[in-house]
C-alpha cells in the first residue's frame, strides 16, 4: 500500500507492505536509525517517537496508521544549524545517559510529557517516564535533566 508520512517536517510517499511497523518504516524506508528497537514488545520505550505531537511506541503502530500524520523522531529535535534541543542539552549537562541506547526514546517521551506537564514535580516526571526503561543510569540524572528542561531556558544549567 502507499503511505505518505511527514517525518521531521518532510513528507514522502512510499509503497510499503501493510504489516510494516512504524519503527521499521522510519529506520529502513526513511533511513532514520536514531529511533532504536529495544524490547519490540511495547515495554521499553526505546522506539518512542511523537505522532501529531504525542509520544507513541513506534514498534506498536503500523506505518499504515501513521499515513497522513506527522512524526517527529530524535533526528528532528535539534535546530537546522545543529543546536541541540533544550531537552537534549539538559540530558548532556545532567549526564542523563550512559550507553545512550534508551536516550532517543527518553528524549521523545520527555518532550511529550513536558507538553502535557510544563511545570512538573519530580514525582510527576518519574511517573511520566514510566513507559521508558534505562538499564544504565538508575534514572536519577534522567529525572534531573527533565526537571531542568522544564524550567525557563535561563535556568537550564
Amino acid at each position, binding site marked *: 500500500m502507499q503511505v505518505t508520512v511527514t517525518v521531521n517536517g518532510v513528507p514522502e510517499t512510499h509503497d510499503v507492505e501493510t504489516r510494516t511497523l512504524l519503527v521499521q518504516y522510519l529506520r529502513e524506508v526513511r533511513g532514520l536509525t536514531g529511533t532504536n528497537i529495544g524490547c519490540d514488545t511495547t515495554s521499553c520505550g526505546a522506539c518512542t517517537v511523537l505522532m501529531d505531537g504525542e509520544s507513541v511506541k513506534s514498534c*506498536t503502530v503500523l506505518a499504515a496508521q501513521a499515513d497522513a500524520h506527522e512524526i517527529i523522531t530524535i533526528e528532528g529535535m535539534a535546530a537546522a544549524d545543529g543546536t541541540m534541543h533544550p531537552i537534549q542539552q539538559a540530558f548532556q549537562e545532567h549526564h542523563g545517559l550512559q550507553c545512550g541506547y534508551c536516550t532517543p526514546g527518553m528524549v521523545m517521551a520527555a518532550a511529550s510529557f513536558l507538553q502535557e506537564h510544563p511545570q512538573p514535580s519530580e514525582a510527576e516526571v518519574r511517573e511520566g517516564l*514510566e*513507559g521508558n526503561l534505562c538499564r544504565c543510569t538508575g534514572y536519577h540524572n534522567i529525572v534531573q535533566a527533565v526537571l531542568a528542561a522544564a524550567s525557563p531556558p535561563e535556568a537550564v544549567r
Partner: protein
Amino acid sequence: MIPASFEYRRAGSVDEALALLRQDPDGTKLLAGGHSLLPLMKLRLATPGVLVDVGRIGGLSYVRDAGDHVAIGALTRHRDLETSDVARSEVPLLAHVAGQVGDPQVRHRGTIGGSLAHGDPASDLPAAVLALGGTLVVQGPGGTREVPVDGFFLGFLETALGPDEMLTEIRVRKGAAGWGFQKFNRRAQDWAIVGVAAVVGSDPRVALVNMGSTTVRARGVEEALAAGASPADAAARAAEGLDPPSDLNASTEYRQHLVTVLVRRALEGATTGRG
C-alpha cells in the same frame, strides 16, 4: 517481530466497517488503537486475514454529559478520557482508571472501546465500567442494540460482541456515590496482579481485575455492604467463589488473600472520599 501478512482496509464510517466485517466476519478484525491487537499479531497469536482500521472514523471520540448518564465514544483514547472535564466531574472513577492504564504512550493510543471489546480480565477499564453499571451500545447487521455490562464479559477474551458487530458507545450512570480504585503491581507500567474498582452508596458494586477468566463482580462483598457491613467485614468476602489464576506474578492463594486487602482499601477510599 513482524505480524503475518494481512489485507489492510480503512473504514470511513461505522456502516463501512460493518460492511467490511460482513464479508468475512471470522477472518477479519477491527483495529482501533492496536495496543492489544498488534502485540498479539506480532507474536502470531492472532493472524487475521483482514484488518479493518476504524481509527479514523470521525465522531466516535467524545465524552458527553447526556443527562442521567455520561456517553463515551468507543474510539475515545485513554488519555482523552483521563483528561476529560466531563469524566472528571461526573464519573471520576472512570477518568482516574483511564489514567492508570499502562504508561503515557499506551494511553495516547489505546481506546476504551478496544479495551472493553478485547475482554481481558487483567484490564482496568472493564472493571471500572462494570463497577459503574454501564451499558454498551453495539451496532451490527441487525441494527443497534444495548448490552448491559453485566452480560458483556463472557469468558477469557470473549464478550457478547458478535464477529460482525462493532461497539460504538459506552454509557455509565452519573451519581455522587463514593468510589475507590486499587491496582497492585510490582513494577511501574505493569498490568494489575489484582485490581479493584468499587462504587458505594445505595447500590454498591465492586468489580475485580485478574481474579478469574473474566472481569468479575465481588458478589459477597456487595451483599455484605448492602446489609450494612463495615468495609473490613465486607472485604473479608472478596475471594468468595473465585478461582483466580496462578502465574509468574502470583499464585492463586496469593491473589485470594491480596484481593481482600485491596477491596478493604478501595472501600475505605470510597467511604472517605479519597478514591
